[in-house]
C-alpha cells in the first residue's frame, strides 16, 4: 500500500512539471513580458522606459530560460523561468499586482471558501442520494418519470439563473438573509445560508440523475434478485443492499473533488461577495493579474492530483476486490 502511494506521488511529479511548463509557455512565451507590460500600461503612448520599469518591478526583466550574463548555476536560476515557475514547487508564489503576498492571501481566503464549499458538498450529496433513491424506488412510475423530467429541466438552467433567482426571492423579496457580503466567525452562517441553498439546488438536476442511473444499474444485478427471492421486503433490499453497493461508485466519484473544494466556487463567491479563493481568482482574471492566476493554476493542479490519489486509495478501501498493482 505504502509502495503504491509512493509510486503514485512520484507519478504526480511529471504531471506538475507539465502543468508548470504549460503555464510558463502560455504566460511568457506566447506573449512576451513586453506585450503584457504594454497591455497593463495601456496601448497608447507607452514609453520603452515605462515598460522597462514595469518589468523590473515585477522581476520580468530577466531572460526567459537562460541567462548568458551570469556564471555557473546562476545562468539558470537568475531567469524568469526559475524565479516565476520553478519556485511554485516550493509554494513560493511571489506577490500580486497590488504587492500583497499571494501565499498569505491564499491562507486567509481559504476559510471563507471552505465555509461555503463544504456544506454545499455534504448537503448536496445527501439531498441527491435521497432524491435518486426515491426515484429508483418508484422506478418506471409517474413519480420516477416526473423526477427525471424535472432533473433534465433543472440541468438546462444556467447556474447564473439559480443565483440571480435565489438572490431575488430570498433576499430582495422575502428579506430573509443578506443579499451578499461576509463576516468571520458565527456570523458567517447567515451570509453562507443562501449560497449553500442555491449551490445545493443547482446541483440537484445532474447529481440526482446520475445517482439514479447508478442505483438502477445496481438494482439489475443478480444479488438483488437473490435478496428479493429470499423474501426480503423492497425497503430492506433498497437500503441494506442497493444503497450500500451503489455508494461505492458514488464515493469514489466524489472523492476526486474533495481537495478542489479549497479552490472555492468562482461564480457563487463573486456573486455573493464572499472573500474566498474563487472570488480571488475572478478578481485576478478581471484585473489580468497573471501572478495570481499562475499560482491558482498550480494549486488547482496539485489539488486535482491529490484528489486522484485519494480516489485510488478510497477504491481499495471500500472495495477490497480492487488490487493495487
Amino acid at each position, binding site marked *: 500500500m505504502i509502495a503504491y502511494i509512493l509510486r503514485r506521488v512520484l507519478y504526480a511529479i*511529471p*504531471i506538475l512539471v*507539465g*502543468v508548470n511548463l*504549460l*503555464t510558463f509557455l*502560455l*504566460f511568457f512565451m*506566447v*506573449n512576451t513580458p513586453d*506585450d*503584457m507590460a*504594454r*497591455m497593463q500600461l495601456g*496601448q497608447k503612448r507607452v514609453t520603452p522606459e515605462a515598460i522597462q520599469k514595469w518589468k523590473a518591478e515585477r522581476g520580468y526583466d530577466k531572460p526567459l530560460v537562460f541567462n548568458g550574463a551570469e556564471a555557473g548555476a546562476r545562468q539558470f536560476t537568475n531567469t524568469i523561468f526559475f524565479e516565476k515557475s520553478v519556485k511554485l514547487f516550493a509554494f513560493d508564489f511571489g506577490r500580486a499586482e497590488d504587492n500583497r503576498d499571494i501565499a498569505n492571501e491564499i491562507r486567509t481566503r481559504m476559510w471563507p471558501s471552505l465555509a461555503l464549499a463544504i456544506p454545499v458538498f455534504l448537503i448536496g450529496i445527501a439531498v441527491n442520494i435521497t432524491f435518486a433513491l426515491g426515484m429508483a424506488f418508484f422506478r418506471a412510475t409517474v413519480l420516477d418519470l416526473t423526477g427525471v423530467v424535472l432533473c*433534465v*429541466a433543472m*440541468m*438546462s*438552467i*444556467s*447556474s*447564473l*439563473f439559480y443565483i*440571480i433567482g435565489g*438572490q*431575488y426571492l430570498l433576499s*430582495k423579496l422575502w428579506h430573509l438573509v443578506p443579499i451578499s457580503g461576509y463576516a468571520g466567525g458565527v456570523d458567517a452562517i447567515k451570509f453562507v445560508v443562501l449560497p449553500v441553498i442555491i449551490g445545493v439546488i443547482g446541483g440537484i438536476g445532474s447529481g440526482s440523475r446520475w445517482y439514479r442511473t447508478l442505483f438502477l444499474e445496481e438494482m439489475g444485478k443478480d444479488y438483488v434478485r437473490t435478496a428479493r427471492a429470499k423474501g426480503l421486503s423492497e425497503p430492506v433490499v433498497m437500503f441494506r443492499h442497493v444503497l450500500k453497493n451503489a455508494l461505492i461508485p458514488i464515493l469514489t466519484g466524489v472523492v476526486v473533488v474533495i481537495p*478542489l473544494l479549497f*479552490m472555492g466556487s*468562482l*461564480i457563487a463567491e463573486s456573486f455573493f461577495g464572499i472573500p474566498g479563493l474563487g472570488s480571488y*481568482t*475572478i478578481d485576478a*482574471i*478581471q484585473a*489580468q493579474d*497573471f501572478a495570481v*492566476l499562475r499560482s*491558482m*493554476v498550480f494549486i*488547482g*493542479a496539485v489539488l*486535482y*492530483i491529490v484528489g*486522484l490519489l485519494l480516489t485510488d486509495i478510497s477504491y481499495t478501501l471500500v472495495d477490497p476486490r480492487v488490487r493495487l498493482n
Partner: protein
Amino acid sequence: MPVFLPTDGLVWLLVAAVAGFTWVCSRRPHLAAPWARVFRSRAAVASLVVLAAFVLVGLLDSLHYRPQLPAKAPGAPAVYSVEARSLLDVVLTPLRTRLEKTYSAPLATRLFQKEQVEQPDGRSVREFPRLRHGGAHLKDEADWGRDIAWRIIGGLAAAIALWSLAVFAGRRTLARRWPDVPWGAAAAALGALLLLAGPAALLATGYHVFGTDRVGSDVLYQALKSIRTSLVIGTLTTLVLLPLGIAAGVAAGYFKGWVDDVIQYLYTTLNSIPGVLLIAAFVLMLQVFLDNHAGWFATSAERADVRLLALCAILGLTSWTGLARLLRGEALKLSELEYIQAAHAFGVSHARILGRHILPNVSHIIVIALVMDFSGLVLAEAVLSYVGVGVDPSTTSFGTMINSARLEMAREPMVWWSLAAAFVFMFALVLAANLFADAVRDGFDPRVRV
C-alpha cells in the same frame, strides 16, 4: 457586397458535413438503424423541431453582407458600409432600427424612467414620456389593452392556420414516407412554437415584446442574435475537439506502449488544471495577442468574430480529454478482439485496421459525446462571459445579456426583462438539446440494442 466572416464559413462547412453524413447514413442500413431508433422517440422528434427553429435563426444570421451606401453622385463607384449585416438583420429590420432612449418594460408604451417633458403650452412636466416606437401607432393609450388582445388573437389565428397547413402537407408527404416516426410529437412541438411565435411576431411589429435595454435597443432582437453565438460555440468547438479527441484516444488505445503513455500524460496534465482557469489563461493570452495586433482586422465585427472563433478553438483544446479517455478505453477493448487479431494476422496495415475496424466501431461514442457536449458548451459560454473571458463584449450572446442585466438587478423597481428573455431562450435551447442528447444516447448505446 457579401462578407465572409470566418465563423460563417465554418458554420456552412459544418452544415455541409452534417448533410453529407445524413446522406451516407441513409444509404447504409447499419448506420441508419440507430438513427431510426432515435427518431422513434417522441422526445427526440419534438426537441429536434425546437432545435431546428433555433438552427434556422442561427443560419439566417450566418449570411453576412455589407449594405451599399447611397451613391453621392450618379456614376460614382459603389461605397459599402463598414457594418456587416446578416439576413436575419434584414428580416428583423423593424426590431433592429426602432431604438428607444433607454429602458422600457415589455409591451410598454411609456419609458421606464421619468423625464422632463415639454408640454405643448410651454410648461415642462416630469413624467414617463411616450416611447418613440413602442405603441406609437396608438392614438389613445386607453386602447392599449384592446390592441394587445387583438394582436394576440390575430397571432394565434395565423399560427393555427399555418400549423394546419403544415400538418396537412406533412401528413401527405412525410408521414407516408416515414410512418414509424411519431409525427404527433413533431406537430405538437411545431404547434407550441407557432403559438408562441405568432402573437410575438404580431406584437413585435408595434411594441417591444421583451422591452428595451439601457441603450434602448430591443431585447427580443438581442435574444434572437444571441442564438447564433450559442450555436457557433456549441458546434464549432467540435471541429477542434473531434480531431484531437479521436486521434489521441484511438491512437492511445490501439498502439498502447509509449504512445499510450505520452497521450495519457498529456491529458492528465491538461485535466489537472481546473477548466475555467485553463480557459481563462488561454483567453487572457489571446486578448493580449489581439490587442497587440489590432491592425489585423478591418472592422470590429471581424475582430469579434475572430475572437469568437478563437474561443471555440480554446474550448476545444481544453475539453478533448473527456472524449479521448472514452475512446481510449473502447479502442483498448476492441484491439483485443479476435477480428482485429485476425486482421493483424492477415497483414492488414495499421491505417486500414484503424479506418475500417476501429473507427466505425467507436463512432457511436463519438456521436453521443458530440450531442452531449453541446448543451454544456452553451451553458459554459454564459459563465465564461460572466467571468470576463467569454465572447467579445460587442458580440451579442446570452452571457453578455445576463452579464449586463446583472447590474440592473439592483435597480428599484427591478429591470427583469433582459434576464427573462435570456432565460427563456437559453432554457428552451438547452432543454431541447439535453432531451435530444438523451434520445441519441439511448438510440446509440449498444447495451439497449435488442
